[in-house]
């Protein structure tokens, strides 16, 4: 019984840690795509932010400076994407891909030139990372069965960014459906001409959405290298940007469902650690490689099975041009 609780608590904790960057990235994608800009460059922006954050945190010793640097780097690329797709009416998928490839090359190039660690940054001292926060009442609740350990290990004990991610989900829901900005954002992703003729600038709205997207990807990247990890590592995003995008699609471009999709992906990842080398009744030990491909297979299955018919914001992917 205790064992099971222990496993659940430990898996839940890992799930939350792994889900956090996915949540940031999925929400980033949500703002972009709701505004009508498809962004498959989430991956690249996260990677850029991860590098910038780790490098800055290493140099200054402050995770907050790292976070800002990460946000700045990511936002810069978000603006490049915005310029290409909004101002220059370029192909959004190609632009996103270009950014992914550019960053995949640029981050290790800079890392090698500056740190000579084969494309990584030096390990951060603990002061340069976001540390776990102990929420109040942990000790008070400790003796309570079940709730005690869950509170202590699943709810408490994460770093600040995890709690920010958690807060962002309801916040995004509120922004999207209860505010002027949200109304316009949803409208511009469906029918930009309607927004334009209503006297609201499509370009400004989309740029704003892309900046939000950049900031959120920046936090996601900083989380990877300065909170969850302790250094930038070459290719450290490993497809997380695409998983986030899949979660967004699976979540029908809505914050809460997207959160659950992220948690689902993170859970498969956390389970993967547990499943390694554990025989499964009737099947035996599954080779690690097959366990490792689970999130990717899951993505394909979800896209094929459930969301084949999910309807994206109608104008997403299409540049808005008044003059053909």
């Amino acid at each position: 019984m205790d064992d099971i609780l222990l496993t659940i608590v430990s898996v839940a904790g890992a799930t939350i840690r792994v889900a956090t960057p996915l949540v940031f990235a999925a929400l980033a994608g949500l703002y972009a795509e709701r505004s009508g800009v498809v962004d498959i460059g989430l991956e690249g922006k996260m990677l850029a932010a991860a590098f910038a954050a780790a490098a800055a945190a290493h140099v200054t010793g402050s995770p907050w400076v790292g976070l800002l640097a990460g946000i700045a780097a990511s936002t810069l690329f978000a603006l490049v994407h915005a310029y290409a797709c909004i101002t220059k009416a370029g192909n959004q998928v190609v632009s996103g891909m270009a950014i992914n490839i550019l960053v995949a090359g640029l981050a290790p190039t800079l890392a090698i030139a500056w740190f000579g660690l084969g494309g990584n940054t030096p390990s951060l001292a603990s002061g340069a990372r976001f540390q776990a926060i102990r929420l109040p009442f942990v000790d008070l609740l400790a003796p309570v069965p079940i709730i005690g350990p869950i509170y202590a290990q699943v709810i408490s004990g994460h770093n600040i960014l995890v709690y920010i991610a958690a807060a962002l989900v309801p916040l995004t829901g509120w922004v999207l459906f209860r505010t002027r900005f949200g109304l316009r954002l949803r409208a511009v992703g469906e029918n930009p001409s309607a927004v334009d003729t209503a006297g609201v600038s499509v370009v400004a709205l989309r740029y704003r959405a892309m900046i939000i997207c950049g900031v959120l990807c920046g936090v996601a990247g900083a989380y990877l290298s300065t909170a969850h990890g302790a250094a930038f590592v070459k290719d450290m995003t490993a497809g997380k940007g695409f998983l986030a995008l899949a979660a967004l699609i699976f979540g029908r471009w809505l914050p809460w469902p997207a959160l659950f999709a992220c948690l689902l992906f993170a859970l498969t990842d956390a389970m993967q650690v547990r499943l390694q080398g554990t025989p499964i009744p009737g099947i035996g030990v599954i080779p690690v490689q097959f366990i490792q491909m689970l999130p990717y297979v899951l993505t394909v299955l979800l896209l094929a099975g459930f969301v084949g018919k999910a309807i994206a914001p109608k104008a997403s992917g299409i540049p808005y041009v008044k003059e053909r």
Partner: protein
Amino acid sequence: AQAQSVPAVIFDMGGKFDKSFNEAAYNGAERFKREFNVEYREFEISNEAQREQAQVNMVRRGANLVVAIGFAQAAAVTKNAAENPNVRFCIIDSVVNAPNVRSYTFKEHEGSYLVGMAAAMASKTGKVGFVGGMDIPLIRNFAFGYEQGAKAVNPQIEVFQNMTGTTPAAWRDPTRGGELARSQFDRGADVVYAAAGATGLGVLQAAADLNRLAIGVDSNQNHLHPGKVLTSMLKRVDTAVYTCMKDAHENKWTAGALRLGVAEDGVGWALDQNNRPLISADMERRITEARQKIISGEITVRPYQQ
């Protein structure tokens, strides 16, 4: 007269400052450079398809000693050694049989046995962990020796084992390393041994974050988180690289396969001011004793069999 030796070192993925395996090689090469005042060329592999061409390029640029770090370069060494009989090759962690290749391998299981004992003695929960890098026989050999050492101290001990992955990327994924270590700590382990290159840094970090103990590998990693790294399993890649370069420089170079264990001081454990407080006198005594017994043959540590 023999031509001047022109050495070149090709580091494997992870880079020369990985605080672990490649860095050990780098230290050996730097020591040679310092002592003999001879410059060497160097190259860091950044993707798999580069290895063969990197060696070819070194040869084209006039290198007559190519030191290839890491087993992954074995195939390329085999091919290039055959095509360039006048160039000497050194390969670390793999055996290539050719008249112009010297191979260094290590008895990792022996060193791991010693740190396994340390882990078992330091553990209060009776549970220790192992996080490997890429799942290959070499790393299983680390795990196998570690387990034997731990069981020698406490036959009831539980040893959790995880491998990070099955590709070379497993050498450089500290985040995953950290998650694996956390899962072992969550299950009650209080010492985790990382044999995973740069991935191990994540393991050490997790131990420091959670106030548990970790064991480093290859280089002496005790200083990375003083007081949180119980010890490090030293693998003297530095010595291997150094002697290889030195022998070539002094014209004493011979081909052949060298296998270094505790007896040759090729593997060992690290004790310095950073982990002094963690190692009790009793622990130190028992590990030193075991070391002697391995050298004398009183204890045989079995290597991992494929």
